[in-house]
């Protein structure tokens, strides 16, 4: 019996471990036993699919999707664009990409955020889109501000946009954060530094992309997202369990 190819095993060396004491909240929220390694079954290789009926076309335009008519949010107007790829460098098409972020002053529109920077009445702070057949996606938004958070007394998050991606199988599910090149807070952020691999941090740092700017309108940053790849060759299966 042939099975669809499995996803490559997750290379844990590029990811944070569960327990990262400098990010204090992880201490009580990190499992301590080893995970059980599980080869893929149908439950892992499948995952939810989304279509254009699920979302609206303006959902990826954060300059507009919460703004009053003829108004727009305060801040540096940016385009965040890139491709969703897999480890085989193949595009991941038609996959849901969702983002959320603070406004230009570093304040989130969330009932639990009490930072003194003001809410922007024209900025919601979330967007979503489907990658196209080439894996390409884009958002328009404002560049988020840095903000302080309670960890050590004086920790500041670098400017960042949270990014959630699906892929085609539930084991590709990923939430990460996009940073911006040149930000001096990146190397001193305890959350960024949970990542043990310097190249992996660079891979989360969006680069200024002048070719994609809209002159006299918006500056652009390029942010590619890589999800786990999948075997394309048939292989002999070994009996699982028992």
């Amino acid at each position, binding site marked *: 019996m042939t099975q669809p190819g499995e996803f490559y095993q997750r290379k844990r060396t590029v990811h944070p471990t569960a327990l990262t004491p400098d990010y204090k909240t992880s201490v009580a929220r990190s499992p301590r036993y080893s995970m059980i390694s599980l080869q893929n079954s149908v439950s892992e290789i499948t995952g*939810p699919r989304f279509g254009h009926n699920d979302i609206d076309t303006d959902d990826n335009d954060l300059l507009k999707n919460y703004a009053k008519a003829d108004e727009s949010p305060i801040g540096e107007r940016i385009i965040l664009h890139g491709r969703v790829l897999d480890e085989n460098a193949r595009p991941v098409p038609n996959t849901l990409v969702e983002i959320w972020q603070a406004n230009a002053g570093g304040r989130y529109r969330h009932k639990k955020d009490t930072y003194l920077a003001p809410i922007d009445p024209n900025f919601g702070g979330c967007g979503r889109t489907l990658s196209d057949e080439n894996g390409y996606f884009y958002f328009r938004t404002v560049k988020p501000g840095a903000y302080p958070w309670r960890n050590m007394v004086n920790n500041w998050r670098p400017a960042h946009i949270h990014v959630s991606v699906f892929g085609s199988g539930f084991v590709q599910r990923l939430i990460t954060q996009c940073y911006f090149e040149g930000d001096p807070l990146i190397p001193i952020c305890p959350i960024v530094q949970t990542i043990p691999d310097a190249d992996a941090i660079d891979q989360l740092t969006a680069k200024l992309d002048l070719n994609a700017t809209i002159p006299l309108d918006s500056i652009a940053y390029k942010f590619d997202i890589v999800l786990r790849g999948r075997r394309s060759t048939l292989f002999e299966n070994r009996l699982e369990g*028992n």
Partner: protein
Amino acid sequence: MSQDLAYLKESASQTAGPYVHIGLAPGAAGFDIYRQELGHDITGPNAKGDRIRIEGRVIDGMGAPIKDVLLEVWQANANGHYAHPEGGGEVEDGFRGWGRVISDFDTGEWSFETVKPGKTQGRNVGTQAPHLNFWIVARGINIGLNTRMYFEDEVEANDADPVLNLIEWKHRRTTLIAQRSEEGGMSVYRFDIQLQGENETVFFDV
């Protein structure tokens, strides 16, 4: 030196943070922005099978419920088919089998309604016992946690399940088995997820 394999590396995970609701459940963050939020309706209107409720908490190493947790579930329909081209077979029109669930900000309790999934095909031969796949993110969780929930009233299927049987310590298997009760004629399954401690839930590197 040798050739470069030229694979890309998976993007590193980062915590979903305390404000994950803004992006994935903005209504809970306190504002209305999208025509429809995704993941509220797991089964659609036409799903056959037993309607059930699943409830629980995610509990941290101090024994406190996590009040800002977000869970996603992925499950087969009552026939054991996932809504996916490789999912094992047809599903009812409108059945997605995916849900997004957040805890109450005050109590940490979460719950959702769905249909009880059927047995799914095994990796090679045989079947897997009915189960739901969970993915858990929150502030302080650096990379989403994968686990599975099985059903207390599927003793025979659970005993034969290839994944439960992978767990060397039999007492740890019980951390994946939800306890059944009945409320107003509906089966309710309780699934408390322990992140640490003696009864730490089994998590999978999938």
